[in-house]
C-alpha cells in the first residue's frame, strides 16, 4: 500500500472503502479502468466491516456472519489491481472532479474522469438534555472501539434509542462479556401501526429472522424499557444517571456510560460541498442526493453509492456500488462492460436487498422530541449554542441555517455543522412553520475534514510558482 497516489489522474476515484466503495472499485478495476480507492480508516471495511482485516475479535459468532461477509469483498478488491490508500482524508471535491487528499502529513491533488462517492452514513444527532456530558457517547463510537480493540463497557451502562444497529451493538457487547444495565427503547408505539402496511416486505426480508433473533438474545439478558418518551443525561461534570419517562412515569437510573443511537443518515458533507443537488427525504428525515437509477448526481461525472445515497444497509450498498461502477465502465470502457454482471441481475439483487427497508424506516422514525430539542439543550456543541438561542435568533429575523450564522456562530466551529446540521434545519423549520426543504441546510465547503496549515502548505507548487522561483 502506498501513502500517496502514484499518478495524478485516474479513470475512476472511489472515495470510501465500505461495502459500496469496495464493490465499486473492484468492479471498475477488474474492467481494466485505472482505479484509486481513498479511505480514511486504518483498513478497508467502512463502519459495518470496520477492522475486517485486523480485528482482534476472532471468534466468528461474536460479530456475526454478516460482518465476515466483508472479508470476501476485500479479497476481491485486492485482486482487482485497484490502488488503495488507507488513512487518506479526502477534504475537497469540486465539479471539475479535482480531489484534494491529506495523507501522511502532506496534501496532494488527483483528477478523475469519474468519481464514485461511497462515504456512507453518520449517526443521527440525538440532542437530549445533558448529551454533551463526559460519559455520553454514540453507539457508533462504542462499536468502533469494540471492533477495533475488543473494548466493551464494564461500568454501569445504559443504551438508549432505537433501530437495528442499537440491537446489533447490544448483542455484540453482551457476546464479548460487556455490561449493559438497561436498554431504553424510544420507538414510538404508534410507529408499529404505521409500519404495518410495509410488514410483508419485511417478514420476507433477511432482516426479519436475524433481527428478531438478535432482539430475543438481548432481551433474555438485559432489562428493556419500551415506550420511552423523555430522556435526559444527568450529572455535574460527568454522567451520573439517566432520567427517563415511560408510560407517564419518570424513573432515574445510575449510569457511568450512556450510549445513544437513533439511526443513521447519509453522510452528505463531501457531496454537498461539491455542489451536488440534495433534497429532503421525508421518510428517512434527512438530506439525500438527487440521483438517477445508476447513482449519477447533478454534477457530471460524480455518482454516489451506498448509504450516502440514502440509508439501505450493507447489501444494498454493495448492489449500488456495482451499479454505479457499471455505469462508469459503460462510459469509459464500453467494450469491457459486456463482461460485467448484467444490469438486470444487479437491479434484481438491489430490489431484493431493499426489501424490508420501508418497514424499518417507518418503525424506527425517531420521535420529534428526540430530534428537535428545546430550552437549554445544546444544539451546536462546538460553539455551545442552545435551542433557545436559535429560537431567539429566529424571532429577530434569522430565516435559515446560513443566515443564522450572522446571529449565532452555529455551525462555524471545528465541525462546521457536521454534527448539528440536521437538528438546526428541523428546529428552524418547526419554529418558522416551514418544511425542512424550504429552510435548507448549511452551505458546506471544503475542507470537509479539518487539515492543518502545514499540510496545506505542503501542496505541490503549481508550474507558475516553480517558474517564479526559478527566475530569481
Amino acid at each position: 500500500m502506498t501513502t500517496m497516489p502514484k499518478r495524478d489522474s485516474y479513470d475512476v476515484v472511489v472515495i470510501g472503502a465500505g461495502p459500496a466503495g469496495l464493490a465499486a472499485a473492484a468492479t471498475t478495476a477488474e474492467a481494466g479502468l485505472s482505479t484509486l480507492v481513498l479511505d480514511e480508516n486504518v483498513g478497508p471495511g467502512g463502519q459495518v466491516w470496520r477492522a475486517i482485516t485486523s480485528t482482534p475479535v476472532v471468534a466468528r459468532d461474536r460479530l456475526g456472519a454478516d460482518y465476515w461477509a466483508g472479508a470476501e469483498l476485500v479479497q476481491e478488491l485486492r485482486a482487482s489491481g485497484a490502488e488503495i490508500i488507507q488513512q487518506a482524508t479526502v477534504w475537497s471535491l469540486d465539479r471539475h472532479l479535482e480531489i484534494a487528499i491529506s495523507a501522511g502529513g502532506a496534501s496532494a491533488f488527483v483528477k478523475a474522469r469519474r468519481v464514485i462517492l461511497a462515504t456512507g452514513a453518520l449517526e443521527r444527532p440525538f440532542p437530549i438534555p445533558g448529551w454533551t456530558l463526559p460519559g455520553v457517547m454514540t453507539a457508533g463510537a462504542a462499536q468502533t472501539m469494540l471492533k477495533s480493540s475488543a473494548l466493551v463497557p464494564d461500568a454501569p451502562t445504559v443504551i438508549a434509542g432505537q433501530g437495528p444497529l442499537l440491537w446489533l451493538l447490544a448483542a455484540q457487547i453482551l457476546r464479548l462479556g460487556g455490561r449493559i444495565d438497561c436498554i431504553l427503547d424510544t420507538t414510538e408505539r404508534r410507529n408499529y401501526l404505521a409500519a404495518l402496511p410495509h410488514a410483508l416486505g419485511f417478514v420476507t426480508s433477511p432482516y426479519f429472522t436475524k433481527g428478531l433473533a438478535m432482539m430475543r438474545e438481548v432481551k433474555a439478558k438485559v432489562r428493556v424499557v419500551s415506550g420511552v418518551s423523555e430522556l435526559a443525561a444527568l450529572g455535574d461534570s460527568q454522567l451520573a444517571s439517566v432520567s427517563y419517562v415511560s408510560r407517564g412515569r419518570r424513573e432515574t437510573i445510575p449510569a457511568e456510560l450512556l450510549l445513544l443511537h437513533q439511526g443513521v443518515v447519509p453522510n452528505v458533507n463531501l457531496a454537498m460541498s461539491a455542489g451536488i443537488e440534495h433534497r429532503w427525504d421525508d421518510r428517512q428525515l434527512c438530506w439525500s442526493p438527487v440521483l438517477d437509477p445508476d447513482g449519477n448526481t447533478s454534477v457530471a461525472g460524480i455518482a454516489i453509492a451506498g448509504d450516502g445515497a440514502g440509508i439501505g444497509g450493507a447489501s444494498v450498498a454493495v448492489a449500488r456500488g456495482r451499479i454505479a461502477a457499471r455505469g462508469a465502465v459503460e462510459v469509459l470502457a464500453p467494450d469491457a462492460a459486456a463482461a460485467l454482471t448484467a444490469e438486470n441481475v444487479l437491479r434484481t439483487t438491489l430490489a431484493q436487498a431493499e426489501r424490508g427497508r420501508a418497514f424499518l424506516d417507518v418503525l424506527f422514525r425517531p420521535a420529534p422530541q428526540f430530534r428537535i430539542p428545546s430550552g437549554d439543550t445544546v444544539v451546536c456543541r462546538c460553539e455551545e449554542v442552545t435551542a433557545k438561542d436559535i429560537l431567539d435568533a429566529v424571532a429577530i429575523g434569522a430565516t435559515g441555517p446560513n443566515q443564522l450564522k450572522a446571529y449565532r456562530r452555529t455551525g462555524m466551529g471545528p465541525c462546521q455543522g457536521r454534527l448539528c446540521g440536521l437538528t438546526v434545519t428541523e428546529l428552524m423549520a418547526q419554529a418558522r412553520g416551514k418544511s425542512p426543504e424550504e429552510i435548507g441546510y448549511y452551505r458546506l465547503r471544503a475542507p470537509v475534514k479539518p487539515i492543518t496549515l502545514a499540510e496545506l502548505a505542503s501542496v505541490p507548487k503549481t508550474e507558475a510558482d516553480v517558474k517564479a522561483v526559478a527566475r530569481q
Partner: protein
Amino acid sequence: MTRLVDAIVVGGGIHGCSTALHLCLAGMKPVLIEKDYAGRHASGVNAGGVRQLARHIPEIPLSIRSMGIWERISELLDDDCSFESHGQVLVAEDAAELATCRARVAELNALGFTHEELIDGAELRRLVPAVADSCPGGVVSRRDGAANPAQTTTAFRRKAALLGATVCEGVAASNIRQRDGLWQVDVGADSFAAPVLVNAAGAWAGRIAADLGEPVPVETVAPMLMITSRVPHFIDPVVILRGRKLSFKQFANGTVLIGGGHLATPDQDRNETVLDWRGLAVSARTVFELFPVMRDATIVRAWAGIEAKTKDDLPVLGPSARHKGLYHQFGFSLHGFQLGPGAGAVMAELIVNGGTQTRIGELGIDRFHPSTS
C-alpha cells in the same frame, strides 16, 4: 400591482442596505430588492477588514468619512457588528519594500492625509510580536480594525426595515425600465415604481448598468478566504503584506482568518464558486513562513464571495451620466466593506440634497464614458 415608493435600491449587500438605511434616516421610504438574502455574497462573506490603510487616493476621503460612521456603528444600528479597532499594519518584508512604504506615507502627508504612519522594526514587533524577525518595518493605520461582515450587513438590513424600508429578499429585480419619469422594477408578481433607482447589485450590477446603456469595464471575481480553528491569542491588529498577497486577522475567539486576494472561479449564474486550493496553498505557505506559531493550526473552512472588480480597481459611485434618477454604487473591487457605511450616507446625500461634501469626483461612471461627460 405597482407600488409607488421613494426609491428602489437593487442589491442587498452592505452598500444597498446602507443606502436604504440612510434614505430612511433622511425621511424617505425606499424598497430594497435582493435576489438571495442580504449579505449572501461578498458583503456577508468577506474578510471584514475595516481599513483606511493602503487605499487608492481617490477613495480615501470616502474611506475617512466611512471610518467616522464605523466608530459609532452601535449608535446607528443598535448592533456592535463585532467591530474592533486594533489598527491595521502593512508589513514590509525587506528594505526595498520599506522604501516604497516611506514614499507612500510621504505622498499621503503631502496631500494632507495623516492616517498612515511609517513604523520601524521595533514598533512593528511591538504591534505584531509574532512576525518573522527579518521584517524591517511597515505602515500602520491605528484607527482601522475589523468587523463581522454577515452580522454587519444583516444589522444594516434590520435597521433599514425597522425605519420603514420595504425589504424584498429571495426574488430578483427584473424588467428595469424608466417610464413617465419613474423607474419601474418587477419583483416576481409585484412591481415597484420610484423617481430614484440605485444600482447596488455588486457582481450583478455591471449587467444592469450595461442594460441601461452605461457599460463599465467590470469583471466578476471571487477572492478566497480561509479560517482556522481557535489558537491561543497572539495578534491584535489586522496584518497585510506589502509584496505578497496576504491578509491576516485573529478574532477575539481565537480563530484566524487568512485572505489576500487569491481568486476562486466564480459561477455567477449558479451563485457558486469553485475554490482554487493551489492558490490557498500559496497563502498557507506565506503564513507558514511569517508566523511559525500558526503551523499546526487547523483550517476548518475556505470560501469565496462573488463581487465586481473594475478595470481601474475603483468603485463606481454617483449619479448616472445618462439617466435622471439613476445612481450607481458598485464595483468596489475587493475593498468595499469598510466603504459601505460611508457610501450609503453619501448616496443618500446625493439623492436627497443633490450633492455631498465628501470628495468622490473621481469615482463617477462618466470616467468610462468621456464622450457623455
